[in-house]
Every structure is written in C-alpha cells, then in structure tokens.
C-alpha cells in the first residue's frame, strides 16, 4: 500500500511562464493526527512558496525522522527524508554544490536538539544559505511519547513517567550563543499569520535562518502551549520593521515589544524565559560569512581540468 497523491505520471509538461499556486505545491494528503500543529506549518510553507513563486523543481525539502520529518512527502517539490538527526548535513551537501536550489530543512526537537545537536550547532556556525524549521512539540512524537530535550521539567512521558528530570534546553539561547548565527526567530503554529510572516522572512534571509516553531501535539503534549493559545496575554510579540510585523494581530496581541533584530545582546536577554512566550525575530545579520558562498569554486570545462591535471602531474613526473 502506498500513499495517495502526486504521481509523476500525472505531472504535466513544463511551462516557463506558469504561475504557481498553493495547490501546485501540495502532494499527498498529510497523515498527521487531527489538530497536529504540523498541518498549520505545512499550509504556511505552501503559502510562502506561492508568495515567493519558487519553482517546485528548484525547491528541496530535507528532513530527518519523526512525525515532523514526514513533511517533504506532503509537498510536490524535491524532498529528502533521511535519517534521524542528520537532515542538516544532507541539506548542506545540496546547498554546497547546487546554489541554484532553494533548500529548506524540517526537524523535530529530538531530531535537532538531541541526536542532531552537533550538526545543528555547526550548521548555525557554517551559516549556509537555507531555512531550518524546528517543529518543537516538546516530545518524541513518532516513537510515542518519550522525554525530549525541550520537554518542560516535570512533564511525564513513557521514559520519565514521574516527570522530566531536567529543566528544558532552550533552543533560542543555544542558537544565539553560536558564533556566526545569522537568523534566529520563534513563532507558533496557532498563529498562522505570524507563522507565515516568520517563515517568509526566513526564506528571504541570506544565510542560515533558524526558526523554532512552537508546535502543538494534541497526542502527547496537549497542555504545552494551551495557556498561550487561549490567552494572548501570555504571548509577547517582538516587533520591528526589520523583524516581522503582522498588523492583523495588533488588535488581540497587546503585548508588543519593539526589538531591533540587530541587537544580539538584547536578543540573548529576551531569549531567556520570563513567564511570557516571545514570538518574533530575535536576531538577524546578513553581513556574516555564508559558508556555501565562501566555498564557491570556478566551474571548469573538461579541457581545462585536463590541462590543469597534466600540469599537476608534471610535478610528480619521474
């Protein structure tokens, strides 16, 4: 049995002037639980692709393993659904040799902050030009409710049934602590407009755009963002012309704090939890070295390569 959806048999001929709509990016019916925050992220991503008119064949979604990592299967772009924790190196490889492609990475909190944490830190530092979405539901969803590095202290799971033993790792402060980090933002799946605006800003960023998405898992961590979803008073939006501004939220979300994303010290302070959930762009800096740009090499014709090779071999000639 296979999943329904895109059959390559049905893909039509290529049309240069074609305008892409959200439907063009949609593939198989998403199989997440009803009410899962991943659905909202998928929709927001499809909107961003439409807004940016990214040709599906020029767009690559790379993921690891987890509920969230099923993401590429539900899009009609190129996708690479790899192994747990290792999406970032694969994405780096794509980006390094194919600067013409738009690369997005989708990871879960176990994926990114636990098994793949080393890759995450180093990807932030390499700063390749791609978008990395962390779908953080504070739990291991796919493997059925184990404690994750971002599970709140005391949250019971199948591996820590008497409650998570440690305070959670804060992905924002980790990200903001990495040298050469160039874009760090946070948004929530229950605010589609903010989600869309943030992913859009990330996709326009030159460099590694890290977006932590607070993602509801009605299956295992229902309570996690419940308060904030019900009570906008528990949310604080970071606003700035260089960050994201979502005017339609103004009426309900009264806690708004101007924050210039150029200010790293302020970003680090704001990343520390202080009762409210802060959403917005914490930090953005486009003047940092971008690894794939730094490593770009001239493209050589076969004839040029052979001439160079023979010259090099001459140095080893007997």
């Amino acid at each position, binding site marked *: 049995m296979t999943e329904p959806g895109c059959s390559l048999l049905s893909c039509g001929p290529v049309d240069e002037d074609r305008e892409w709509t959200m439907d063009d990016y949609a593939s198989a019916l998403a199989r997440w639980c009803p009410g899962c925050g991943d659905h909202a992220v998928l929709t927001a991503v499809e909107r961003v692709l439409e807004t940016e008119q990214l040709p599906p*064949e020029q767009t690559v979604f790379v993921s690891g393993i987890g509920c969230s990592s099923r993401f590429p299967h539900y899009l009609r772009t190129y996708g690479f*659904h790899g192994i747990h924790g290792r999406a970032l190196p694969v994405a780096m490889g794509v980006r390094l*040799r194919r600067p013409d492609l738009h690369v997005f990475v989708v990871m879960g909190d176990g994926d990114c902050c636990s098994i793949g944490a080393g890759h995450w830190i180093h990807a932030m530092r390499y700063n390749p030009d791609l978008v990395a979405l962390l779908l953080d539901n504070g739990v291991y969803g796919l493997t059925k409710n184990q404690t994750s590095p971002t599970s709140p202290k005391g949250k019971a799971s199948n591996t820590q049934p008497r409650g998570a033993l440690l305070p959670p790792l804060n992905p924002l402060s980790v990200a903001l602590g990495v040298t050469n980090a160039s874009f760090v933002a946070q948004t929530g799946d229950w605010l589609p407009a903010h989600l869309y605006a943030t992913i859009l800003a990330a996709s326009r960023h030159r460099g590694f755009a890290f977006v932590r998405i607070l993602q509801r898992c009605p299956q295992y961590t229902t309570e996690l963002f419940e308060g904030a979803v019900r009570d906008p008073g528990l949310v604080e939006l970071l606003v700035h012309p260089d960050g994201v501004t979502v005017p339609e939220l103004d009426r309900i979300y009264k806690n708004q704090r101007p924050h210039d994303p150029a200010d790293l010290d302020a970003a680090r302070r704001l990343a520390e939890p202080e009762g409210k959930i802060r959403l917005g762009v914490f930090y953005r800096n486009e003047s940092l070295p971008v690894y794939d740009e730094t490593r770009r090499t001239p493209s050589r014709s076969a004839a040029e390569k052979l001439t160079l090779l023979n010259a090099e071999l001459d140095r080893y000639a007997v």
Partner: protein
Amino acid sequence: MSTASPAPSRPPERTILRVPEHTVEVVSDSGEGAQKCAQIFGRVSARMGNGVWTVEIIPAEIQPPPRTPESASGNRIRIGTRPVTNWGDHANLVVAFNEQVLLHRHRLEALAKDAVILIEDMWATHDDPDIRRAWNDAMDELGQRAYRFIPVPMEQQCLTLIDNPRRGKNMFALGLLAWIYSRDLEKIKEQIAHEFRKKSPALYDTNVALLELGHRWAEEHLDFRIEVPAIASDRPMVVMNGNQALAFGAIASGMELCSMYPITPATSASHFLSDIFEKFGGVVHQAEDEIAAIGVALGASFAGKVAFTISSGPGIALKTEFIGLAVMVELPLVIVDVQRGGPSTGLPTKVEQGDLLAAIFGQPGDAPHVVLAPATMEECFLCITTARRIAEAFRCVVMVLSDANLATGVQPFPRPAVDEHWLAQPPDLAPVREGLRPYDWDPEMGTSRRVIPGQPAGMFTATGLSHDELSHVGYTPDVHERGCVMRSRKLAVFQQMLKPPPVHGDDAGDLLVVGWGSTLGAIEEAVDRAREEGLAVSSLHLRFLSPLEPGLKEIFGRFRKVMTVEINYSDDPDAPFITEENRRRGQLAWLLRASTLVDVDCWTRVPGEPLRPGKILEALRASMPQGVQS
C-alpha cells in the same frame, strides 16, 4: 659486533657493490627529519629510473621522548633494477641518528644480518653518563649480530654550518646516501627546492650546504659505494604515495566534493586535495564529524554530483547508518576507507586489512553495495574513476578499501593518460520524460535512472523508508521485498560484467594463495621464490570483494589447497581451545568459504607493519598440502 671502522684520513680504497636491489632505512627521533630525508631519497631514486617502494616508520605520538625506541621515525626505501612491489624483508643499509631508534628496528628484526649501519657517534662520548651507559648497553645488544658499524660525526659536522643540528642532520644524512648510491645532486636539489624554497630561500641554501657537506664527508671517509642500476625504460612515469594517487584519481574522475573529518591514515589525501582541488572547481569540506561528512557527500550526490567521503575504520563505523540510507535511496556515493589497525582506536598509523567484513556486511538490514580494493599506488589512482562510474551506472554505493601501507608508501608507476571520458558528466537537468518514476527499476536488472532536483516534472521525495517505484512509503511485504530484490539484482548484473581474475603462476597446482589489497607485491614475491624452490604454488589477487569476481570456484578446483594471506586477525589452528569449528579465520577466508564452499585456509598476521615476503614464503612452505613437499 664488528669493531667500528676507524675513520680513514684520506680517500680509502673503494669497493663498488653492484646489486639488483638494496633496502635502506633512515631512522631518527621523531622531529629530526629522517622522513624528509628518506622521502627525497626515494623520489630521486624513482626519478633516476629505479623501482622504488617506501614504507613509513611512524611513532605513535607526535613528539615521543627523544632517544627512546618508541621515538623511531623514518622510512624504509627499497630500490631495485626491477619494479619494486613491496618493502621486502630486511634493510641492507641504515642511517641511524641515535642507538635507541636503531634498537627499535633491530628488535623488530628489520635489519639484515650483515647490514651496514651509519650511526651518529656523539652519544658514545656524551657528557651525560646515562647517555653513555645507554649507548654501551645498546651496543652490547646490537653486537650480537654481525652488523657493520660506521660511526659518523653528524652533529659535529653539522655544527660547522648550523646551530641546531636537530634541524639539519637529515640533509647531511641525505648527502651520505647521495654519495653512496651515486644519486644525482641536481635532482636532489630540485626536490629540496620543491620542499623549502617556497618557505624561505635561506632555508634552501642551508639545506643544500648540509647536503653537500654530507656528500663530501662520505666521499672522504667511506670505502664502499653501492650501485643499483636503473630500469631501462622510456615510459613516462610518475612517483607518489597512495593517498596522493587517490586524490589525483578523484580529480581525474571528475569528483567535485571530498567531504571528510580528519583521521589517520586517510587525512593526508585530503591535505593534498585541499591544496589544489579548488583550482579544478572542487571543494574539500571538513565536516564537524564523520557522520556529517558522509551526509554532506550524500546531499551533494542527491543534488546531482558524485561526491566522496574518505575516512578510516573508526570513522567508517560512524558512517554506517548513512551508508544504509545511501543504499536505500540508491544514490551514487564513493566511500574510501584507508584502513588502519583496529578495533577501536587500534593502531592509528599502522597497516591492517581488518575492515573487509565490516565494509561488506557492516550495515543493518540488507544493504548491497560494491566493495573494491586497489593493490598498488597506480590502482589507487585508477580506482576512483572506476568507483565513480560503477556508482553512477548502478546508482549504488562503492566502498574503496585502501590501507596505511598504500597510503604512505611511495612507488613510481606509469603516468596515467588522463582522459576526458574519465570525468563525470555534469548533471542533466532536462525535464523528466513523462511517465518516468524515481525508481523506474528494470524488472530484470534492478537498474534505474537517477532523477535530480532541478529537473522539471521529476519531483519526488527520496526516503530511507521502504518504498515503491514512486518513492512512496510502503510497509507491505510486496513493496519491501521488491525493493530488496531490485537493489540486490543490479549488483548481480554488475558482477556479470567482471572477468575472472588472472592466476599468477601456473593455472593448476598444489597451493593457491588468495590475497587482496596492498599485499599483492609481497605475496607474488613470496610465490615466485617458492616456485623457484620447486613448490607448485600460484596466487590470485582480488580487486572486487563484493560482489566477488566470477569463476573463483572453478579456479579453486584446480588446486589441492587454497589459502588466503591477509593482514588481519585469525586464530592459529594449533592454539589452545581452537577447533575446526570455532576457529576465527581471516576475513577474506570467511568470505570465500561462504561463497564457494571450498575449504579455504588462511595465514594472517597483525604485526602493525606490511607483510614481509620472506615470512609469507615460510608460511607457504609450511602450508603445502601433505605429501607433495619437494
């Protein structure tokens, strides 16, 4: 011990020893530069037309305590009038910078019984009584052999030119060797220029002065010279070590990405590549670990490039999960394993062939892929192009098993005639033809065409989950079994394209020795010597280990006994507790027994050094099937 010959005052009567081959060792404390001296001697000998094979003598630490046996650092260089294919048995001439490093070689039985030893003699009269005592003790131990010692005042001589002879004795030593073996000083100077002129012209001048000093001293004091005539050939040759050859081969194959994490003895290939790869449009990516390294290579491969990753045992172990993924998504990927001694950190700088079974079977589930092993420096050069082509044609993983012996050994070989056809084609980004599925397996052959991001109408999601032709996830028995069959079948198709391996020696006989990888030269030399003794021995060397080359069972059937010779562990059949059943065998022996049902025996050793032909010969004599001993 023969008494040290007194240094003669005027040019002595000279004997000229004309020999078909000679083996030299230069050993010093780590950091005194014996390696550089020996490397230049080896390269120049190759450039003068000799057959050459070198082996590094490497201490385990970067700066071990000086004047200890563990500090021994240097090279063995075997030169000949014929192509030299291995490091031989014993050194005939040694230049030793102190008696302790010499002891190290002596204790390893590395020196010929009548070896000539040029030794720095400052230690005999050193101010420090402990050093004098150590010298005397060492001389007593060494004196049990008939070595010929020639004391050389290296330190004293070098002090006439420089303040710190620790950094300069090596060029003096090179001067000695240059005189003894009549090496062309101009060619040596070119090599010195190659090494030092870029760094500083003054350094070059000093080194040349030291070289000439050593040369003069030898001329004035030594009573012998050695002549190893060159090979008469006008084929253009190149000389390099196996890692350089691999790196060259990668460029010649059109690879564009080498993704790696430093690990001995693989790293030097990436050092070499880092220097020149960008000129060719390539990149060496030093990843955060070996897992990331293969992930990056796989990503590049998904994006339409063929990439490779290079590592050694411990790093290959880390890559395991990604290897399985690469097999599952059927992306071309070349993985080079420059083997060292294992398990665990093992013997980082020493040779072993211990990764064969891990390379073939080390991945969970069924992960069919190609494993091949170069046997010479030349094959290190050529095998990357072969590997890349197979990887692309069959959308598969190809593992290349080199080892420390090939990686650091230097050998001249015919200059490869690099050709445009060796290079990878740029990815074809034309729209995908209607109806083509991402795994459009030919039902007979399991082969399919790769679809690459950027190709319109080709969009699909590659997945490590079990999948069908559309790359749609499916867990049903038919989907999973079909995928397994297709991934396996294409390797059977590939295997049918291989030729049966040639037999070295007679086509039939009493004993057939089977080897793989860097042991080729030592095995064939041992077999040739055995055949001269009248033993009916032949050998066969495998390049493809998975799938195995065809025709083996038939070839084996023509010999009374088949035995592998390998540098990996096996139980000695006569050891306590060891039985026919529980005996753990050499890795190739396991493989051949399983696939041919022939009772293949093995002779394997893990000495942390290349096998010596003389030792193999002893093993062959002892292994002749009963009743045919000549």
